[in-house]
């Protein structure tokens, strides 16, 4: 039963529960954060300055410019392909790599159509609806008679 010890390098931060029941977690930084007063407002004082190609200090300022008038339309970009959204499904208790693919999977669809949503419906049933139905807005569904 050999203990392998390793020393934390400065600067570091180590956090552990005082009862020592759990694994400590720690951080070893190249340098400890400092308040940088020279960052322009509204940048975070902890923003790390990046140097651009000309070697000048550059801080990305995210403040938006005032909106253009609606007539000035910028170039319309072709939307990038829908990024695959990764995530975790609470219904299926399963990680997924592609949201749309997962939602359409048999397992998820079984859940989606199950009575698990009763808890939501019970709440919905108590809502009064003070909106009118906009009949003219109802999309016209073309129904074809399937004459076989």
């Amino acid at each position, binding site marked *: 039963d050999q*203990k*392998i*010890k*390793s*020393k*934390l390098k400065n600067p*570091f*931060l*180590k*956090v*552990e529960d005082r009862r*020592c*029941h*759990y*694994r*400590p977690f*720690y*951080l070893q930084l190249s340098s*400890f*954060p*400092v*308040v940088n*007063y020279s960052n322009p*407002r*509204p940048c975070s*004082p*902890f*923003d790390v300055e990046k140097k651009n190609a000309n070697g000048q200090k550059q801080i990305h300022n995210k403040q*938006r410019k005032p*909106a*253009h008038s609606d007539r000035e339309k910028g170039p319309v*970009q*072709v*939307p990038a392909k829908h990024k695959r959204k*990764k*995530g*975790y499904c*609470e*219904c*299926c*208790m399963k990680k997924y*790599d592609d949201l749309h693919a997962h*939602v359409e999977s048999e397992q*998820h669809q*079984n*859940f*989606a*159509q*199950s*009575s698990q949503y*009763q808890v*939501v419906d019970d*709440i919905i049933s108590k*809502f009064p609806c003070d*909106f*009118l*139905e*906009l009949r003219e*807005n109802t*999309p016209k569904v073309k129904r074809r008679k399937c004459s076989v």
Partner: protein
Amino acid sequence: MEAVHLDEQPPLNAENSFKKYESNKKGAITDIERLYQAVPQLANVFKIKGKIGEGTFSSVYLAIGQLRGGHEEKVALKHLIPTSHPVRIAAELQCLIIAGGQDNVMGVKYCFRKNDHVVIVMPYLEHESFLDILNSLSFEEVRNYMFNLLKALKRIHHFGIVHRDVKPSNFLYNRQLQQYALVDFGLAQGTPETKVDLLKVIQSETQQKSCTYNKPLITLESQVTSPTSRQPVHHSATKTANKRLCSISQTQIKQGHKRKEDPECRSVQRSVFGERNFNVRSSAFQARSTVRQPRIMDIPVRKLSVKKKTTSVVNNGLGKKTASSTSAKLTCDCYAKDSVCSVCLSRRQQVAPRAGTPGFRAPEVLTKCPNQTTAIDMWSAGIIFLSLLSGRYPFYKASDDLTALAQIMTIRGSRETIQAAKTFGKSILCSKEIPAQDLRKLCERLRGKNTNFDNSAGDIQVNPSQEFALPAGIGNASDSALQTSKKHMYQKQSGHEDDGREKKTTQKPSDLKGWDKIPNSAYDLLDKLLDLNPATRITAKDALLHPFFKTMKQ
């Protein structure tokens, strides 16, 4: 509308969001069409105008509907991600119903569902981008903003709701109308006394059994998803939910032992009390450990779990006894030292809720304290106040919890942080001692309008006369003593009148907007909101009674 969990992203007003999505018009239109397809009833009631926000767990659209009275009304449609658990969805609705609709807490008008697609209809409040207006607000506006934020927090805390994600993009502000709305209960948790029933289902950490050693794997609960198990519901929905969730609780899902956050330090984790991990044996000191760790993906993880009966649910064949006896074997002498070893690193990780946005997380969240209270929201309010007073947003910028903690220490002091952490059972070791900053000097210097002191380079430190020697002892007694002495810290300073009012003097240039005369009470309140000890941190109720607001209508 809600700009949900877009960390470092200011909220969008409708106009700007259209701009934002303009470049992606095609995408936005298909999103709207998709929403109509997913929830067809919407088309009978609303004209969806555009997408105004997108987060990890929802997208928000602006829509127009006709009221029975005949006139039109703008609404925000929040389309929840279809992977949300029904109990979580219902809990969010319950929060909106119970706490919402007054005191600056967003209410709910209606809700639509088709299968796994749920759309919450809320009043639409056009609002500013925090970042855009931050440096044009008058001091009086800041005071009103904070007062109204605290009003909202007082209300939700009264109902035993911990919001967990208080930040500017979840607190809508309409400057012209002076209207405010706290939004997004998608991460909310209940206190033990919560009045929101369904938040009780989402378990509180204190009742949680510690997790045990086991092989990390993901089990699927097949019985749960069986479509044939459509039983008539004899009991209340809550009970059903409870029952169902209990069955879920026996399934454990492993989370990586090192969850990376993306560089934009967006928090996408929606961990829940009772989230359980397998212990992960570190491979750092064990070449090719026999425990296979699945590759951890950097993905949003939301875990729903359950309030477990104290009559022990089988926990993967191992109960608490096993866990504690195992930890007993895992003693080493690294505690509070600058080392780690194969023994301490082989202990299981502590699991505590972390959901929220890194820069707004309280120290007890960052250090994985299992008992988190409504005080975590008060810390977040303090961070917002810090932004308002310093003109900096986001104030903290960290990609992980410990970097965020290091940044907090840089402002509040390392000794102070370590001292406070002891009171909630955490030992922090920091290789460098960093003095606490004087909040007024810090904020004035960051705003760049310092009228009261010389703006020389170098870190500003607390005036030694105002620094408190920390008692050697630990625990609440010494801590409250510290609090008491702190109380008078700002009153002791001379040179600033604490009248709690913006003085109107005709000679002052109007562009100062009150920023030349900030009362000490402002920094005193900030100090109390950013109290490192959650037990003594000011509550929303007390904050509203603070001298800083003394001239305001309660």
